[in-house]
C-alpha cells in the first residue's frame, strides 16, 4: 500500500514512516504542503495521513486544495486538535477519518484498511493456490508460505487486488509502482514476466492494448 504522510514534526513523521515501512508499505513523508504539491503522482497513493496544524497551508486547506484538483484519495487527519469544531470542519471538507494524537498504530491501520478494502477482508483469494494479505502486504501459497517478492512486485499485486476485476492501465501501473522514474512499457512487461516466473499458478491477466487485471476468485 502506498501511504503519504504530511506532518511538520520531524520525529513524529519519521516514526510513522518507520512503522509503515516495517509493515511492507511504501511510505512518503512531507513536512509541509509545498513539498506535497510538488509530487506529480498524488493520484497514485492509496491513503493520505495529514496533520492539521502546520506552517503554511494547514491540513484543512491542503485537503481543500486537493479536492479542487480532483484528487479523491481518502484522507485521514492525525491531529492533537481535539475540539469537536475541528472534527466537524474536517468532515465537512471531505476527510475520510479523524484520529487524535497520541494514537495507536493498530487503530490507524484498522481505519486505513476499512477505507481501502471495502468488504473488510484482509485476505483476498487470487486463485486456487495464492492468497494476498492486504494488511500485511504479503502473498501466501497453498501451504501458507510467504512468497518472496520485491517491493515493486508487492505494489503491483496490491494495486491490482485493490482494483480487483478492473483493468488497470499500463500508465497507472507505471505511475503507481515506479512513481516518478522514467519507465517505458518494456520495463513493465519485464517486471510482469519476472513475477510470473515466481508463480506456479499465474493470476495476472493481460488485456491486450489496455492493461492488466486480477479476476475475482471465490
Amino acid at each position, binding site marked *: 500500500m502506498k501511504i503519504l504522510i504530511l506532518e511538520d514534526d520531524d520525529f513524529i513523521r519519521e516514526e510513522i514512516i518507520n512503522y509503515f515501512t*516495517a509493515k511492507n508499505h511504501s511510505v512518503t513523508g512531507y513536512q509541509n504542503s509545498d513539498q506535497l504539491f510538488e509530487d506529480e503522482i498524488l493520484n497514485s497513493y492509496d491513503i493520505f495521513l495529514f496533520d492539521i496544524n502546520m506552517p503554511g497551508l494547514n491540513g484543512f486547506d491542503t485537503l481543500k486544495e486537493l479536492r479542487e484538483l480532483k484528487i479523491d484519495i481518502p484522507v485521514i487527519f492525525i491531529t492533537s486538535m481535539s475540539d469537536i469544531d475541528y472534527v466537524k470542519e474536517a468532515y465537512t471538507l471531505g476527510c475520510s477519518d479523524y484520529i487524535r494524537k497520541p494514537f495507536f498504530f493498530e487503530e490507524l491501520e484498522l481505519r486505513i484498511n476499512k477505507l481501502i478494502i471495502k468488504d473488510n477482508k484482509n485476505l483476498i483469494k487470487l486463485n486456487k493456490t495464492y492468497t494476498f494479505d492486504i494488511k500485511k502486504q504479503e502473498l501466501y501459497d497453498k501451504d501458507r508460505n510467504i512468497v518472496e517478492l520485491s517491493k515493486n512486485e508487492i505494489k503491483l499485486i496490491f494495486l491490482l487486488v485493490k482494483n480487483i476485476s478492473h483493468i488497470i492501465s499500463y500508465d497507472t501501473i507505471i505511475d503507481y509502482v515506479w512513481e516518478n522514474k522514467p519507465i517505458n512499457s518494456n520495463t513493465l512487461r519485464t517486471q510482469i514476466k519476472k513475477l510470473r516466473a515466481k508463480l506456479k499458478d499465474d493470476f495476472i491477466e493481460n488485456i491486450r492494448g489496455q492493461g492488466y487485471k486480477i479476476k475475482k476468485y471465490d
Partner: protein
Amino acid sequence: MIELKDLQKKKKRFKLFLFVSYLLFATLLLSAIFMLHIYFNNLTSIKKFEHQATIHAKDKMEYLNFFYENVSNTLKAIAKNRNFLNFADRNQDKNIVKNLFLTIIDSDKYYMQLRFIDTSGNEIIRFDRDKINATPYEVPKHFLQNKYPRYYCKRCLLLPKGKIWFSNIDLNVEHGKIETPFKPVIRIAYPIYIKNNYKGFLILNIFMRDYLKILTLSPTFDVYLIDEKGYFIISPNGLYNWSRYTKNGKNIYKIFPKYAKKIMNAKNPLFIEKEKIFIQPLKFQNSQNLRLIYKEKIEKIKDAEHYVAKRTFFTVLLAILVAIPFAFLLSSPINKMYESLEEKSNELKDLANNLESKVKEEIAKNAKKDRLLENQSKLAALGEMLANIAHQWRHPLTRLSLILQNIRLYSSQGKLNNNTLNNYIQNSLEQIEYMSQTIDDFRNFYKEDKEKTVFNVENSIFNAVNIIEASIKHNGIDMEIDITECIKIKGYPNQLSQVILNILHNSKDALELNKVKNPHINIKLYKSKNFIKIEIRDNAGGVPIDIIDKIFEANFTTKKSTGTGIGLYMAKTIIKDNFNGNIDVENSKEGAVFTIVLPIKSL
C-alpha cells in the same frame, strides 16, 4: 433626617387637602356640566314656548276675527233685507221687520240687544235679552229712549256708507252705573243709507263673557287680555280683570314695567325671550286695539323651578358621591409615595440605629464575596493551566507513544538492534525530561510571590509566553515580542506574569473565535517618563464597543460555557493594588490593545 412625626402630620394634612381638592374639583365639574344641561334645556323650552304661543295666539286671533266678521255679516244681512229697507225708508212692513229682528236675536244666545236707531238718536225698534240664554223680547214703545247723548250714538251717526263700527268691549252700564256682576258687552253698528240718504243705524249688543273666556282660555299659558290703554280686561284667575274700573287700577305698566312700552307698541306678534312673554295684537278692521299676552303658567314655572331644584340637589349629591371614590383613587398614588417615604424614613432610622452592626455585616459579606471570587479565579487559573499542560504534553506524549509502538513492532519482526533501541530510549528520556520541565515551569508560574522582589520585567513576559506558547503555536498564531531594554522593577514577578498570561489567553481565544486569517499577537515593553508600559496587541477585531467598559468588572464574561469572568477583574485588582499601576484597553484598527502601566517608583 426627616422627623417621622412631622412627616406623619404632613401626610395627614396633605391627604386631606388632596382629598378635598379632588372632591371640590369633581363636584364643580359635574355641577358645571349639569348647569350647562339646564341652560340648553331652557333654551329649547323657550323655543318651544314661542312656538306654542304663536300657534295658540294665531288661533285666538282668528277666532276673534271670525266673531267680528260673523256679527258684521248679521248686520249687513239685515241691512240688505227689502222689508227692512221699506221700513227704514217709508216706515212700511213694520211687523215683518219686528219678526225679522226677533228671529235674528233669537238665533244667537249671546245677542243681547238689537236695535234700529234713527238719525235723531231715537230707538225705533229694540229687542232685548236680559242674560245669556234668556228669551229675547221686544221692548215696548213707551220704554224706547233717545240715545243721542250717548257717545256711541254720536259716533254712529257719523258713519259713512257701508262702514261697520265696533265699540270697545266694555262693561254694561245701566242707569249710569256699571252693572255688577260685570257684564262685558260689545256694540256693533251698521249705517243704513237709502239712495245716499242716511236713515239711521242698526246696532247689536253682544254678551262677551263667554267669548272673552274662550279667547283667553289656555291649558298651558297664563293669558292676559289688555285694552288699548294697557288695562287688563282679562287676567289669569281674574286677578286684574277690568282693572280700568277697579280702585287701584293695575295696568300693564305696573305688572310688566320693563316691557310695557314694547308690548303696547307691538303691531305684530312679539316674543320677549327674557321674560318668556308672547304678545298677540288683535285688530279687526276698525275694531278696538286689544292685545293678548301669553306667559308660562305660574304653577308650571313653579313646577319647573321645583324640578330644577330637585335635580340640582340630586346632581350635586351624585357628584359628591362620585367624587369621593375618584378623590380616593387619585390621591392614593401620592399617598403611597408618602407611605414609602415614611417606610424609607423608618428604614433610615433603623439603619442609623444599627449602622455599626450593618457595616460589620456588609464587610463580612464583601470579604466572603472576595474570597469567593478569589477561589473562582484560582479555579479558572487551574483550568487554564491544565489546558496549557495538555497542549505542552500532547506532542511529547505522541512521540513516546510512537516510540513504544515501534519498539514493539521492530521487536516482533526481530529487527530491533541495540543501536535502534538505545536511540529510542534516549529520545524517550528527552521527551520525559521536557514534560517534567513543563510541570516545573507551571508550578513556578503559579507559585505565590511571598514578598516584593526586584525583578526583570522581560522575564515575567517570557514566563507567561512560555506557558501559552504551545497553545498559541497550535492555533497557528504568530507571536512577536519587542523588548528594547532591560527594565527592572520591584514587585511580584509571578503576579505580573499571570496578568500578562491572562491577556494573552483572551487574545488567543478571540483570534480563534473570530477565525482571523494570519492571526498575530504583539507584545511590546518600553519606558515612558516614570512609567513602564507593556502593550499587548492582537488583530482579532477588538472588544465590542458595548462591552468595552465592562470587561474589567467582576463576573463579566462573554465566554458562555467556559468563562468565569474573573480573569480581567483579578488582573486589574493585581495591577492596581499590588503595583500601584493601571491596566486599560482600547481598540486599534486591527484589534484590542491592552496596556499595563507600572510606575517605576516602586523600585
